[in-house]
């Protein structure tokens, strides 16, 4: 086990940022912390790397206590890497020196940095200043810099939020490869479900400072702990008190008849809105359905939640 968090609570004045949080992660594992703004995910990240202290609970890495009531290990002594949301590259240092910043002079800095530059496809950019790099290149420098200290745990804070959509998919897959190649354990904080599902082995869902569910994306998708969790993974419909996913609404069969209220083309399918007994449902359909069309429907699978 690389990281153990036990009953972590953190308050900022009257606001409880994290409440009784408990989880652990295995060596080499990647966990995504998923939640909306204010859910406490960035606070958790800052606590793990030592930029905030916990109020109660215990946090340890490789069985070494980082923070509890009696101990607080300063960030510079934790050996945890962090890639900031906007990369936080040092603007006065070139690419090489940014990556070499945390590498001890006792180590072979040049070889270490050069090899990381090769892995992150930055070779040739050694002398460039941060503002001379593209968004994707800056991201790779930030990642290389964090990996250069050979951290026991790597943290990524909203790593793709500053990238445009076309670049994001490319960089995401590159970074995933680099992380897997390096074998480092990793925590990614994000509010994008796509980032979480594509990068992480497990996903931890935070809401109002509480850990609602932690598991693989498949298990969470199939058995979400709450309506909130279910909605994070896509559209959820509610009909006569029954919850079900949009994909489980089957059109053209069943006894009930709904009226089409809207149908428009998006991502290769028609996003369709139906009305049944004054209740609205959404689903996707392969063909266009004119408004006011009456169509039979059935529900393939219901969702049930353990948390209200």
């Amino acid at each position, binding site marked *: 086990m690389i990281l153990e968090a036990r009953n972590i609570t953190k308050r900022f004045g009257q606001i409880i940022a994290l409440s009784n949080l408990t989880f652990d992660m295995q060596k080499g594992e990647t966990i995504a912390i998923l939640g909306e703004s204010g859910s406490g995910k960035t606070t958790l990240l800052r606590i793990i*790397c*030592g*930029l905030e202290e916990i109020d109660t609970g215990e946090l340890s890495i490789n069985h070494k206590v980082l923070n509890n009531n009696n101990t607080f290990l*300063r*960030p*510079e*002594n*934790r*050996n*945890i*890497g*962090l890639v*900031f949301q*906007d*990369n*936080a*590259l*040092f*603007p*006065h*240092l070139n690419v090489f020196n940014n990556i070499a*910043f*945390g590498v*001890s002079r006792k180590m072979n800095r040049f070889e270490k940095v050069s090899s990381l530059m090769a892995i992150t496809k930055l070779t040739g950019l050694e002398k460039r*200043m*941060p*503002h001379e790099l593209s968004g994707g290149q800056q991201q790779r420098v930030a990642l290389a*810099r*964090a990996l250069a*200290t050979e951290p026991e745990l790597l943290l990524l804070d909203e790593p793709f939020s500053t990238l445009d959509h076309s670049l994001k998919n490319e960089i995401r897959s590159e970074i995933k490869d680099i992380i897997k190649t390096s074998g480092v354990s990793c925590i990614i904080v994000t509010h994008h479900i796509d980032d979480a599902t594509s990068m992480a082995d497990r996903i931890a869902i935070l809401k109002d400072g509480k850990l609602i569910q932690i598991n693989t994306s498949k298990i969470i998708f199939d058995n979400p702990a709450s309506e909130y969790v279910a909605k994070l993974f896509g559209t959820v419909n509610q009909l006569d008190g029954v919850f079900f996913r949009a994909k489980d609404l089957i059109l053209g069969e069943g006894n009930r008849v709904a009226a089409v209220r809207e149908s428009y083309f998006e991502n290769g399918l028609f996003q369709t809105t139906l009305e049944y007994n004054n209740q609205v449902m959404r689903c996707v359909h392969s063909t266009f359905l004119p408004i006011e069309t009456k169509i039979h429907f059935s529900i393939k699978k219901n969702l049930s939640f353990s948390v209200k």
Partner: protein
Amino acid sequence: MKSFLKTFRFSRKGWLFVLLLIVGIILLPLFSILIRAFDSDASTWELISEFYLSKYIWNSIGLVLGVSGMTILMAVVPAWLIANYNFFGRKFFRLALLLPIAFPTYIMAYTYTGIFDSTGTIQQLANILLGNDFANAIYFDFMTPFWLLLILSFCLYPYIYSACLVSFSNDSAQHLEASKILGANSISRFFKIGIPMAKPALFAGLFLVIMEVLNEYGAVQYFNFKTFTSGIFVAWENGDLTSAVRIATFLFATAIFFLFITQILIRKSKIEKTGKTPIVLEQLKKHHNVFAFLFCGLLFLFAFLIPFMQLLFWAIATYKEVVTFDFYLVTWNTFIISMVTAIIITLISFILLFAGNQLRNIGGKQLASLGILGYSIPGAIIAVGIIMPFAFIDNSLQTDWLLGSIFGLTIAYLIRFMAVSYNTLDGALKKQGSRLDEAALNLNTKPIVALFKIHFPVLRPALFIAIILVFVDVMKELPITLILRPMNYETLATEAYRYAQTNESAMQAAPASILLILLGTVPVILLHKLIKN
């Protein structure tokens, strides 16, 4: 004629004429010096060049380097501590450490001399409390270059302190956090992140310090330390204007040299800052807290509190004798000339700025920026440089309007302090952006109408600040006032300097000095507000 004036007033040619006229006046002393320097009528030049010139050069350069080093040491550490850490007294020190800038250097010099000399406060106290032998044992010669250097540094370090404080406070917290996570401890963060990122601000502050040291006259004269400015005064007092001008040429070359060096350093150290996460102050604990408090506390104590309390003590002791009708007259003179000059300079710099903006596509901004060169020209150069054209105009017109007149003095102040108001207004205008101009043009408003209907009201706070800053600078100015003032015309600065020159009456300089310092704190408070915002 009327239609000509109308066309002229609103045309680009009109703005160009205004621009050239202002810049021409600012550059007048420089041209004058260059012409007069080649004059053969220099009765004492041989003596000066043989015995004194090298001393002037090395002493001036030595003083610049010494004060530069000392001010950096004094300024950077407290700026870093105050920007990044919470410690006992932090909020107080943020303002308090700016206060020594209100101390004119010659006042600091004579105050400290009064504290340390053989009949000074320390000796008197030691005599009374611990006896004559102890007093003799602790006596040391205060009038040495080291103490001059320290005194100048006390007065000038706030230039670097304020620049660095703004720079450190504007850094993104993420850079410091990133360096922490990468293993950098607090000392290494200071040297590897803080200092390199603050270099442009540090060098900009250093440039001001260097210009102030080269402009320095009162304190060096008091310590009998021979620099360019003291040489200029000696030659001028001996009636050898050509030699004064020649020394001024050397001083100007030195000023340009340092200007060039600092500008290169500023340009080379400029960085593209990214991100802006506000800095969260880290609470200092135990001995770190004590260290921060002691560093800031001792600096404030020696650079402001001790000399200020000494002056206050002297002022209380002498005010009945000194604060007479003449003192009120001098105070009134000072207030009137400083205020009127400040308003004129601010209005002219406003016009210069606007003219430069109107002609920006033909290099108007660059031409206008020549108008602020005066701040890089030490006061003594401006004073001796302006004597010749003033005398020429007065002689040609058979008048005494310029030389030795308030009007002439005002023009010299204009040349010297134009940069202060210009930079204040320029900063405010840049914040406002070009959108207002564009909106006005889009609404078919002529530039001259936009000037009065839009820019003037919008820039009113900046105009007010500029007037106050120039007011205080003019009030404290010494070399120009000493050389160009009308006969028997005294200001608070010349009055304090006159008393301080003679050790016997040094205490009597205190009331004028206190008044100068208190008025000098006004821009300090304004500056502090700007830094806080």
